[in-house]
């Protein structure tokens, strides 16, 4: 089934914005979407795949290398011709074993042919693309540990069963989950660049619109897709344009001070908060087609960049999003 078009998702602007920002600048480091059931989390992530511009990669390369010299030796490719391929969006199923994720000795080859060969895992497949984990908070701990390490270094190192292999694994982590079902460890939280909280729309007209579009998607698929795929294409063009203009964007020292002050006031751990906030603000400015980074950009992306980096306060029921908004109000005025 073709995924629901991204542009046809009603409301949920923050979630859509966060996803677009990571598409513009992959180094922001992924999106975490937390929210109740039936709010369109999974729909949005799956729609994202169709939205991303294609990449150029060597055909058949297990790690989607861009250049022929980057193709690992163990891949044993005969021809190294480049071709355009869709940006990989790899699903990490909850039950995935360590072997599936990192790659392991190819047991089939080892046992039937007696060869020692490497069978690449999901991390290899996700290189230069997206790694999507649905119900990320239910992921088993040892898989989380693996991911933490690789997401940080951008390289997957396999030292097991007599294999000694390393390959690049740079991917954008996208996770979704329902916080009621389990918490995420702060270490993993920190690896996500942006985090958004989604809720069902409370406005009746908006809810009706959701139902109508979904109904149209299911019953009149061709016409519906025709209409919205054009909009998706427009977003894709805008992403490509923003990527180009990102380099030309001017960043004044004043804005840098703003960013640092904001993070200091919130007491976010480490410097990753500042870096992500800056990158997200820049991507946002490029998306808006502005030439210089201003305080307004910082203000708009601050909640999604900082929300998950605060220390938990057991008595604050309002949620950290409100805390960030409050502090932004105080610091930036």
């Amino acid at each position, binding site marked *: 089934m073709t995924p629901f078009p991204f542009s046809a998702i009603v409301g949920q602007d923050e979630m859509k914005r966060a996803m677009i920002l990571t598409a513009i600048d992959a180094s922001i480091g992924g999106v975490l979407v937390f929210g109740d*059931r039936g709010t369109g989390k999974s729909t949005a992530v799956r729609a994202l795949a169709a939205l991303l511009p294609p990449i150029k990669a060597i055909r058949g390369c297990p790690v989607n290398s861009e250049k022929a010299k980057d193709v690992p030796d163990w891949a044993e490719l005969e021809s190294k011709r480049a071709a355009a391929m869709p940006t990989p969006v790899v699903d990490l199923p909850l039950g995935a*074993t360590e072997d599936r994720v990192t790659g392991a000795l190819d047991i089939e080859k080892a046992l039937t042919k*007696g060869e020692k060969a490497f069978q690449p895992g999901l991390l290899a497949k996700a290189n230069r693309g997206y790694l999507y984990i649905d*119900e990320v908070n239910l992921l088993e701990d040892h898989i989380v540990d693996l991911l933490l390490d690789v997401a940080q270094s951008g390289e997957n190192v396999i030292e097991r069963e007599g294999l000694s292999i390393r390959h690049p694994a740079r991917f954008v982590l996208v996770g979704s989950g329902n916080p*009621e*079902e389990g918490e995420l*460890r702060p270490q993993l939280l920190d690896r996500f660049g942006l985090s958004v909280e989604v809720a069902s729309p409370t406005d009746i007209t908006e809810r009706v619109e959701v*139902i109508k579009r979904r109904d149209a998607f299911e019953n009149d698929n061709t016409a519906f897709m025709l209409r919205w795929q054009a909009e998706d294409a427009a977003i894709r063009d805008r992403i490509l344009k923003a990527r180009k203009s990102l380099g030309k964007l001017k960043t004044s020292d004043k804005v840098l001070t703003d960013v640092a002050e904001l993070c200091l006031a919130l007491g976010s751990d480490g410097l990753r908060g500042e870096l992500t906030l800056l990158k997200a603000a820049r991507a946002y400015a490029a998306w808006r087609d502005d030439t210089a980074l201003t305080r307004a950009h910082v203000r708009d992306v601050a909640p999604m960049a900082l929300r998950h980096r605060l220390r938990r306060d057991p008595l604050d029921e309002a949620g950290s999003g409100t805390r960030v908004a409050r502090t932004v109000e105080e610091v930036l005025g």
Partner: protein
Amino acid sequence: MDSWQQAVLALRLLAIDPGLGGVTIRARSGPVRDALLNLLDPTAKRIHPAISDEALFGGLDLSATLTSGHLVEEQGLLAKAGPMILAMAERAPVRLAAHLSIALDRTVGHTMIALDEGAEPDEAVDPKLAERLAFHIDLSDVTLHDVSALPTRKAEQPATFPARGGFIAAQGRVLPSMPPEITEQLTQIAAQLGIDSLRAPLFALRAAKAHAILQNRDTLTQDDVEIACALTLAHRATRVPEPEPQQPDTAPNNTESQSSEDTLDIPDELLLDAVRALLPDNLLERLAAQKARQGRGNGTGAARKGNRRGRPLPSRQGRLDNGARLDLIGTLRAAAPWQTIRRKASERKGLHIQPSDFRIKRYEEKSDRLLIFTVDASGSAALTRLAEAKGAVELLLGQAYARRDHVALVAFRGTEAELLLPPTRSLVQTKRRLAGLPGGGGTPLAAGMVTAVEQATTAQRKGLTPTIAILTDGRANIALDGTADRKQAAKDAQQISKVIRSHGTDAIVIDTGNRPEPALRNLAQTMDAAYLPLPRADAQSLSDSVATVLGE
């Protein structure tokens, strides 16, 4: 319409439109449920909660590959669309529920009949999965007598029940178009019933259409919409709607604009009535049970999270499924003696390994317990029972040591709480800190509890199982912000109790006052903890009662 008829209708609607996802049937196994299952397509696949990922998704059939010497792949159950029966659905682990939910989301044609045999209200199908199934039927009050009059599979056309590919595709029927007012109305009613998820009105919409097709009609009638509402919305309701809709100005407007045209016009009230007729009487109790479940697992038993990867045990013979890890050396060792014979027999070169040679790695994991003692060292407690409390903690420490439990010590006095000892196993250290614990000052109970909760959360993340033991005389008089305000202090303590309950952390409240303090008993109830009043107890009896409450 009784629940049996509803069940049969739900199955028919599913056959017409597999997009409805499925149905949860809550009933103990018995003739009634069997009668219902008899109506199903006999080729329906059966899934049990312990099913392996390989069986679901398919993959390399290692055993067959090895015996035949060439690659054999097996197909998973989810590869082909069709009805699936999930037996013992309430026991399905979160992981399986997540897998099945994703499968239902992505593929057209899968329908799920989840058989929920839960006996207690808090045993139920995983909410994630239940959310994706349109219907929920409770058959527990149906007797065989109600069933016998109904047709069996042979009498009916088999195509009316979930069949492969669904009924719509087979019949090429066009779904009746849905007037926009109905869409709006369904959405509004779902909102009135307190249903957040937007899947509910979508299901109601689909169910109404399917019902119209079932009745061989091309247009929707009031009947379709009413039945659809009753079947898809009632069990999701989180509040009973107001008997009179509070919008007298909008309702007449709607009717005016519509009555002139020849469209469908159903007053909201009628649809709500249809739902209300099916609302369970104990809605609020069930909601409470659901809330409790969020903290405590869902009848599948608490997931045991090892804090270490576990002590390796000798590997044993086994099958390579469900993420089992092969002990390569053990396998080769088991296969070695047979190589000559096998080579001769098969005339194939290379290593010959057969499934019977597989050795599987095993680990033993243990989730350790952490006892967080939260001790009141305020002036009032110091005067009376601090010495006894200290003695009791020491005795408990001895037992904790024997069980290799971890211990943390939090004391509160004056205006704040202090973590005297982070989680440790060192008995000596704990004793020394405890002995040096001074008394005096106010009772910042809330602050002590906050520190305890923080410790508990951290411990849970590390895979420990925390238990909070609060020893106090319960006269909280310092609020969280450090001010001496008795009222606010009590309020804060209550609030944190709620937090503890929502985390599902085990707790014990030990009242060390001279007289049992009713406020403290309340507090214990709020956090779902055991309450032990010990007005005239010594250290030994305190320790005994705590040990009993904790169990082994």
